[in-house]
């Protein structure tokens, strides 16, 4: 494939991509008749919670003095972090797939599968299970359902050669429609007053509780950070991770090294699916306390941008998820305050993908040159890049 997607960690170039995208966003706002400065200011305030001027409401913390007084809106910040939580999981899902050379566009469907399974298991037990056991069971249900939904495209790729880009996209549509069918039929909320397409509420023992009152920020964020470290360790330090990277580097070489390529493909896709499935479970446990239609939003697709901007490594994907979570929450705030459509965030995301894509391509070109000059292995190359 032209310019294989390779891991990279160019922070400067990632920032440049984000900068370009934000400038383009400002130009679009200006051209379409909005005040770009107040739009960007609202975007920033919604994204970070930081704003100039003294506090105007409860839950805002003042800082600075005199003309440099500002305040932090804890709720806005918490909501941005809450948005980042599923994004970090889906971003890791896409990144893990890409490490094995597989383009997992199916995090969306895997997240839906995980959320639905979590809602079912979360509703079971009726509060008789000890809290921690129930939480763990719900998380496992989400991970397993996501893994199953991810493994099937992996199996189709490994055994039948069906390209995962097409099959995972089809699986997304299947998941969306099947989930909607289930929550309007067999799994529908039994409460006759509730007409919305949703399941029954899960038991309180399966709830994750908000850290900031009224917000969606829960311990899910901690789990996501742990997952990021876990994935990074897996990819870098374990033999399973070595096999995944080897397959991602090239099928011929991996086969020559005695690696079972089909097995690695299926395992990588199952693991990627499990990560996205946990994202769904956490949305159920911490935000909606049931499965509601549209719960997955566009988190799965956004995971692609998160993974690419993050250069496929743990730290990068974490920072990238924090950025896109803040962008998404900020855009909603911006729409409320200045009427600029939140679709602007989608445009920013697309431009970031395209800018970062150029970066990745250049790097892979550099890699080819290096490989031609010396018989280098990946570690050597990574050291070289780390040294810059």
């Amino acid at each position, binding site marked *: *494939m*032209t*310019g*294989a*997607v390779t891991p990279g960690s160019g922070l400067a170039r990632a920032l440049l991509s984000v900068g370009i995208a934000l400038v383009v966003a400002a130009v*679009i706002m200006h051209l*379409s*008749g909005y005040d770009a400065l107040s739009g960007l200011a609202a975007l920033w305030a919604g994204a970070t919670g930081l704003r100039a001027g003294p506090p105007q409401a409860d839950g805002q913390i003042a800082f600075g003095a005199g003309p440099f007084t500002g305040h932090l809106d804890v709720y806005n910040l918490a909501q941005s972090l809450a948005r980042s939580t599923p994004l970090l999981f889906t971003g890791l899902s896409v990144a893990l797939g890409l490490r094995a050379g597989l*383009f997992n*566009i199916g995090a969306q469907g895997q997240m839906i599968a995980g959320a639905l399974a979590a809602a079912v298991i979360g509703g079971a037990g009726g509060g008789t299970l000890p809290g921690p056991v129930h939480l763990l069971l719900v998380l496992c249900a989400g991970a397993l359902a996501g893994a199953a939904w991810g493994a099937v495209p992996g199996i*189709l790729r490994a055994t*039948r*050669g*069906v*390209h995962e*880009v*097409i*099959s995972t*996209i*089809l*699986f997304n*549509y*299947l998941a969306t*429609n*099947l989930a*909607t*069918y289930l929550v*309007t*039929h*067999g799994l529908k909320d039994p409460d006759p007053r509730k007409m919305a397409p949703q399941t029954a509420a899960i038991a309180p023992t399966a709830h994750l509780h908000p850290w900031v009152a009224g917000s969606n920020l829960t311990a899910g964020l901690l789990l996501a950070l742990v997952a990021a470290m876990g994935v990074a360790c897996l990819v870098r330090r374990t033999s399973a991770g070595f096999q995944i990277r080897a397959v991602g580097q090239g099928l011929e070489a991996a086969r020559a090294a005695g690696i079972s390529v089909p097995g690695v493909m299926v395992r990588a896709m199952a693991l990627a699916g499990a990560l996205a499935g946990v994202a769904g479970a956490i949305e159920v446990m911490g935000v909606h306390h049931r499965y509601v239609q549209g719960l997955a939003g566009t988190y799965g*697709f956004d995971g*692609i*941008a998160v993974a*690419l901007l993050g250069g496929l490594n743990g730290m990068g994907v974490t920072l990238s998820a924090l950025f896109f979570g803040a962008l998404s929450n900020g855009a909603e705030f911006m729409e409320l305050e200045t009427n600029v*459509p939140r*679709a*602007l*965030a*989608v*445009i*920013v*995301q*697309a*431009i970031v*993908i*395209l800018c970062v*894509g*150029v970066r*990745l*391509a*250049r790097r*892979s*070109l550099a890699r080819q040159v290096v490989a031609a000059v010396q018989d280098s292995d990946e570690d050597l190359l990574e050291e070289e890049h780390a040294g810059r």
Partner: protein
Amino acid sequence: MPVGSGETWALSLMVATLYSATPLVLAALGGVLSERAGVINIALEGLILAGAFVGAWAGQSAPIMGLAGAVLAGALIGLLHAFLTQTLRMNPVVSGLGITLLASGVTRYLALRWFEQGFRIDGLPGGLFLGLALILPFVTLLVLHRTRFGVRLRAVGENPESARMAGVAPVPLRYLAVTLSGVLAALAGAYLSMSDAHTFSSNMSAGKGYIALAAVIFGKWHPLGASLGALFFGFFYAVQTQLQISGVQVHWLGVEWTSPFLLDCLPYLMTLAALVSVVGRAVPPAALGKEVE
């Protein structure tokens, strides 16, 4: 979709199949052109969306302007995909997804600014696009196999190095192929907004670009094969809509099989089944996705 009261169910299903297949055929032919030249084109989805938007927007003044605008937008976005993948050497899947996301975001943003709630356009008769979908597969076949351009295009998709030895520059040819591919996909979009819906709605392409791409693989990268694949998938779209219109209900094993949500799965499920059964025997162009200098 025209469903006359006097027509038999089978006849209206056939008509519905042809109209459902129309955008898929157009987009699939775009996919064939691009991929036979060696460029993976997952941007089809975004191109359809852009074509639909520009068709609706420019079509407000005069339908012919809508058509021209959609063609121009498709060509420009196709050119962008060619530039990103061939000149900047970006991964074609990244470029395609980025372009699709860009089209999705820009059309959503502008639709809020430019279109009134519930606006309608006169548009163009669906028969026009249907005619194109019936003729263009054969035109594409002739172009690919009987013209110098077509022979060179396939050579570049199979073996760019030999093509270069024979004095054909691969990159300009790929630019041309992807640009034409963009025009065809945008026509598919123009059909959706100008003839089918007579309006524009966000993400109205609804995965048709990806289905078209599956039809290309199903039809083994051959213009007629891909069109037949598109017809096959169009049939299941038609079955789904006809069943919904007819109001028939089938309950079996406690499942409401005629629920719109399950019927919506049908085209995707059949696409998947077709890929699983055919892919092992389908050989893509040898240099598909390969870089050229």
